[in-house]
């Protein structure tokens, strides 16, 4: 049998591990022969696995414009992720993908002002888009990033935010944390409230990712500010096994998150039953 099958994975080597927050690490993955294992678009996902431990879907956090490697920001929360957090540089993992659709960076988002709203580990899928936009800066309008987390230590990619994003022109970064903390002189408060406070202009397209509660309240806030559902994109996650819409578990109504998603425009999502 010469045909490839998507269920038979490829190999990747972890070349760098960065501790982002107490429970989030970012892993850099390259193919054994060097370079990226496969190409992807911002928002797409990949199935990572350690054979015998488990397999799970993670969003690719590096931008497609990065030609050398892929990155995954992973929060420690289950069997596989615990294992990944314990491994050392040089470990091989299996990887298959890319799966799902992507944020429409080359179509609907082109030429638009962009507002990114992220909470906690929800920055991971958006980071791919943000860096893609930074690398193709002339294709997009103003960029504003609202990012919040429980505490300063829980802000993923804090160093990159400060060192790179904040220094870029035409990018406004607004950070917030849930509770006051020593050594933090920025904004304190929940993300949805902060978005309302900032009162962004309604001519921008919004990309939201974070805990379901945050998404829900952010959307309500955006509506109050006059945003339409068609202006908002989000990315979903449910239990997945195959990644290609065959194993039958990640559906919301008739849509499979792994195949028809994970990126949904909010008006598409609100037509689907409330089961996520």
């Amino acid at each position, binding site marked *: 049998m010469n045909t490839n099958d998507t*269920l038979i994975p490829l190999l990747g080597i972890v070349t760098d591990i960065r501790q982002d927050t107490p429970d989030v690490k970012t892993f850099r993955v390259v193919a054994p022969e060097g370079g990226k294992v496969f190409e992807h678009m911002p928002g797409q996902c990949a199935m990572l696995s350690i054979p015998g431990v488990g397999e799970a879907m993670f969003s690719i956090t590096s931008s497609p414009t990065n030609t050398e490697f892929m990155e995954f920001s992973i929060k420690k929360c289950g069997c596989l992720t615990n294992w990944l957090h314990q491994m050392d540089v040089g470990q091989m993992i299996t990887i298959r993908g890319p799966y799902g659709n992507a944020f429409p960076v080359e179509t609907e988002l082109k030429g638009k002002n962009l507002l990114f709203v992220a909470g906690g580990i929800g920055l991971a899928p958006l980071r791919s888009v943000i860096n893609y936009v930074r690398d193709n800066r002339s294709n997009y309008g103003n960029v504003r990033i609202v990012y919040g987390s429980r505490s300063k230590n829980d802000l993923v990619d804090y160093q990159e935010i400060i060192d790179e994003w904040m220094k870029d022109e035409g990018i406004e970064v607004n950070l917030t944390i849930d509770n006051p903390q020593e050594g933090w002189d920025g904004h304190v408060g929940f993300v949805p409230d902060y978005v309302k406070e900032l009162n962004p202009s309604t001519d921008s397209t919004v990309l939201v990712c974070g805990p379901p509660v945050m998404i829900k309240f952010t959307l309500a806030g955006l509506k109050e500010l006059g945003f339409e559902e068609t202006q908002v994109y989000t990315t979903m996650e449910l*239990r997945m096994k195959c990644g290609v819409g065959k194993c039958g578990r990640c559906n919301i109504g008739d849509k499979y998150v792994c195949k028809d998603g994970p990126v949904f425009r909010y008006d598409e999502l609100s037509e689907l039953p409330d089961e996520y």
Partner: protein
Amino acid sequence: MLRKITAAKLDQLFEAISGKQTLYIPTDREDGAAEFRKYESGMKLSNALNTVRSAKDFFFPQTENLVAFKMEGKKIEVKDIRKECEDFVIFGVRACDARSFDILDKVYLVDPVDSFYKNRRDHGTVVTMACTRPAETCFCTAFGINPTMPGGDVTAFPVGDGFFFMANTEKGEKFLADIDDLLEDGDLSRLADVQENTRNILKKLPLANLSTDSFGGDKLNELFNSDKWAGLSESCIGCGTCTFVCPTCQCYDIKDFNTGDGIVRFRCWDSCMYSDFTQMAHGNPRVSQLERFRQRFMHKLVYIPANNNGEFGCVGCGRCLQKCPISMNIVKVMKALEVK
């Protein structure tokens, strides 16, 4: 072209087929139920309407190895363990099960093609069997299936003193050509009589008038939000019987097994009725049996039609009607949700 084999020559036919490739036929077990078994000399074709397990096993087996891994320190080696499947024949597949292959095809043969399924599908020849004695639990006609004229590569029609054969595909023509010396010409008018007789019985079935008008992809939210689900699902015990005997249930799980010498990754049937089906590290979107129960029927009656031009995901074989431990089934669900 209609060909015929006399009942007396049936054993010869089975011998001839099984001499060249593996042949599976439905045969009676001691407990009175029928199941597909590999043909061995002397085995008798069952008269039962349907087997306990559906024929989907042949293309989508309950467990199947996908890939093997060898682990050494930080290194992983991926071994492609796929082998070309050998040719085989399934004889005596009913119209409902034959249709279920079309539904499975729509999942497994769409891009990206599932090579494991395709491998089996390419090498299998399906000989269907027209129904002459449908049971009270049959309702395939509700889904537009004609049990007097089932699909497959070859169709067999029982006609008293033997069987008529009709090839439907190239594979089927070849199948009939290979056994041509055992066959004689069939009489088309007799076939029409047999079919007419069955059609009259079909009209008398208690579920003959089951309607699918209230279902389909366009009724997603009203059906999903129906207040009937709570009552329907209250007695569901959450076992997987309905999903495992169902010819169209196609969900699977992927698991790893450590053989002590390496890892084998295999897939096995999974059931949306199980609580861990959608369990994630941080929670479960289907918290109670109500959501899981609803998923199964919504999938068959709404989600599949939504993605396949209105074609339903049920074939009306009646297995879940016969096997559910508490006798809750798709017919009761359809009747309860029906908009009169």
